[in-house]
């Protein structure tokens, strides 16, 4: 068991935590994952609900093939994603660009590099800030990772090969302490699935080249008098990165369907298996 101390909860103002939790709950509700707070680890029941295993082979995958769907993921259509997900491996993911390195801090405040954190895993990288209250923004991205984590509890390939990262673009507020409390990531409830790390940076100077390299535009909102506020304007972005540290897909609103992200991870795994043969 980790010797890490209990996650501090002092980083985010209670009201903001409550608002953020509401946003998360709304998003999770949309995705059928029950209720949860980003400041608390999910209950095992929630994870089990998120990890409902569908009938193998039940899903028709869009491109003239039938195959087993990944375990542990709800493949049912929703109003927002009214289609069947593609069969992993039935399509290819082009290399978009190299996934840049950068200096980050983990929740213990230890200086690390992004490439060190990637550590030869397939990575889903999500840029967030903990005070985001836009239900279509960071709470949505985190909710999708929640679902994928749930899937990984029942899908050994995901658990063994995938690493998820939430990286804050608000280092001024989102200190390592705050990131530790974001979803209480050290809780034992997060064991048994894909590893999920919460990162931040030491300063905007360290953050800026990372955002630039990943083409993530972030703007601090200003009030009517032109003074900076606590809110950020940003486009929802998440990145799929292969073991060779190359970006293989970029997700935004409209693509943030956990079924698509999991299909893409399995497509990379299938690509690796094909290359080994």
């Amino acid at each position, binding site marked *: 068991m980790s010797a890490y101390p209990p996650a501090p909860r002092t980083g985010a103002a209670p009201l903001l935590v409550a608002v953020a939790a509401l946003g998360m709950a709304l998003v999770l509700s949309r995705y059928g994952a029950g209720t949860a707070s980003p400041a608390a680890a999910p209950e095992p029941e929630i994870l089990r609900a998120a990890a409902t295993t569908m009938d193998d082979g039940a899903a028709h995958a*869009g*491109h*003239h093939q039938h195959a087993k769907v990944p375990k542990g993921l709800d493949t049912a259509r929703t*109003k*927002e*994603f*009214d*289609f069947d997900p*593609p069969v992993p491996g*039935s*399509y290819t993911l*082009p*290399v*978009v*660009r190299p996934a840049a390195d950068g200096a980050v801090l983990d929740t213990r405040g230890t200086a690390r590099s992004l490439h060190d954190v990637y550590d030869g895993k397939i990575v889903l990288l999500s840029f967030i800030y903990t005070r985001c209250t836009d239900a279509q923004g960071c709470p949505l991205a985190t909710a999708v990772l929640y679902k994928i984590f749930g899937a990984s509890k029942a899908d050994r390939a995901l658990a063994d090969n995938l690493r998820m990262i939430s990286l804050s*673009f608000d280092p001024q507020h989102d200190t390592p302490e705050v990131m530790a409390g974001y979803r209480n990531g050290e809780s034992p409830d997060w064991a048994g699935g894909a590893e999920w790390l919460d990162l931040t940076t030491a300063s*905007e100077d360290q*953050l*800026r080249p990372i*955002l*630039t390299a990943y*083409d*993530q*535009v*972030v*703007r*601090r*909102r*200003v009030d009517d008098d032109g003074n*900076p506020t606590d809110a*950020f*304007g940003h*486009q929802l*972005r998440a990145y799929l990165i292969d073991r060779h540290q190359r970006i293989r897909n*970029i*997700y*935004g*609103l*409209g*693509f943030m369907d956990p079924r*698509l992200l999991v299909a893409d991870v399995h497509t990379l795994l299938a690509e690796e298996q094909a290359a080994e043969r």
Partner: protein
Amino acid sequence: MQNVLSKARTTIGALILSLVGHGAPVVADETCQSPYMTPIKGQEEFVYVWTLGMDGVGDESDKLVTIDVRPDSETYGKVISTYSVGGQHEAHHSGLSDDRRTLWAGTLDDSQLYLFDIATDPAKPRLKKHITDFVEASGGATGPHTVFALPGRVLITATSNNRDHGGRSALVEYTNDGDYVATYWIPTPDNMQGATGKEFADGYNYDVRVLPRKNIMLTSSWTGWSNYMRDSNEVLQDAEAMKRWGNSMTIWNLHTRQPLKVLQVPGAPLEVRWALGEDHNYAFTHASLTSKLWLIYQDDKGEWQAKDVLTVGDPENPTFPGSIVITNDDRYLWWQGIADGTTRLIDVSDPFHPKEIYKKKIGAQINMGSSSWDGSRIYFTSSALSKWDRDDEQAEQFLRAYTWDGKELKQSFSVDFVAEGLGRAHQMRFGAHSLYSDVQTAQR
């Protein structure tokens, strides 16, 4: 017996010959942009016009023209900036990245791509990258047309190829920074790539739009370099050339970029306009050669189908539509006729039974319409293609701005692109300071 298409071609040929040349297409406006891009729902401040250089006019070069449309500005309705790229390359369409920081402008003749920074100073775009190897990078696709925003990337429709210079072509994907990612060729009878509809496949390409909740991408078809860069009168009298127009649309899996089904849509179906309603699973397109409005829809079994639902104007004198614009409530379409210079309002509230309810002559020739989000302002431009534009005594090049009160179009201002020394006014995009007003933490 003549089939419908060949009869239409004959009719159009006669019409256009009598008018000394008319031509092809265009796109734009806030209701028809990528869903991954933030629309300007208030007052647009600037209209960027990708303009063809014209012999004897100004510096004769292609250029990006910026027009001030801020109602309270001292320069309202005036040209406030031009950026000439030097030379004539057949400037045609432009498109925006998902963050609206970059305007991509393409050329049909020599396949150039110019990336303009419109964020640093939206009133004065500046060139930040010039891509010259589109053909080489894409593996032979030429004539970049639509630039459609995806998260962090753009998808570009190419219109021709470097082998036979015909209409077979591809979709080409780039990063927002202008780095090549991938090429997806349009299915052909000898390479359907798993799609159905072999009997309708022609490999042609023109426009692309998506319906994310259905994971569907839809492309249309036009013609190749050998036709669009040739004098219109020659093409229209050349029976072989007239066979080389697109007659298909292709349904794709958006996520995997794999073609699923080719639909028969004769007559060069050009712009793709999905309805915006959250349960409206249908799109419209306009067949340029037949002046027909087509509906692409999902039937009761979930199959995608195509149906022609209206012939616009007099069938004996086709309007030769260059563009359509859908309103944000999915109730109306603006239809721009190149041949008659007239815009028409089509009531599409019943998409299977649309009807024309209004029309207004805008000029001798119009090609493109571009509307504000709320539909109260609409802009029209004149040019189709350098070798297809009118060159008779009625020839004119302009941008004309109108207001729409639900009953009547009233002109706000007009910019004469010849008198101003600019060239042929082609395609429009909107800009505004408000898109970039917050404090920037990071940018490209």
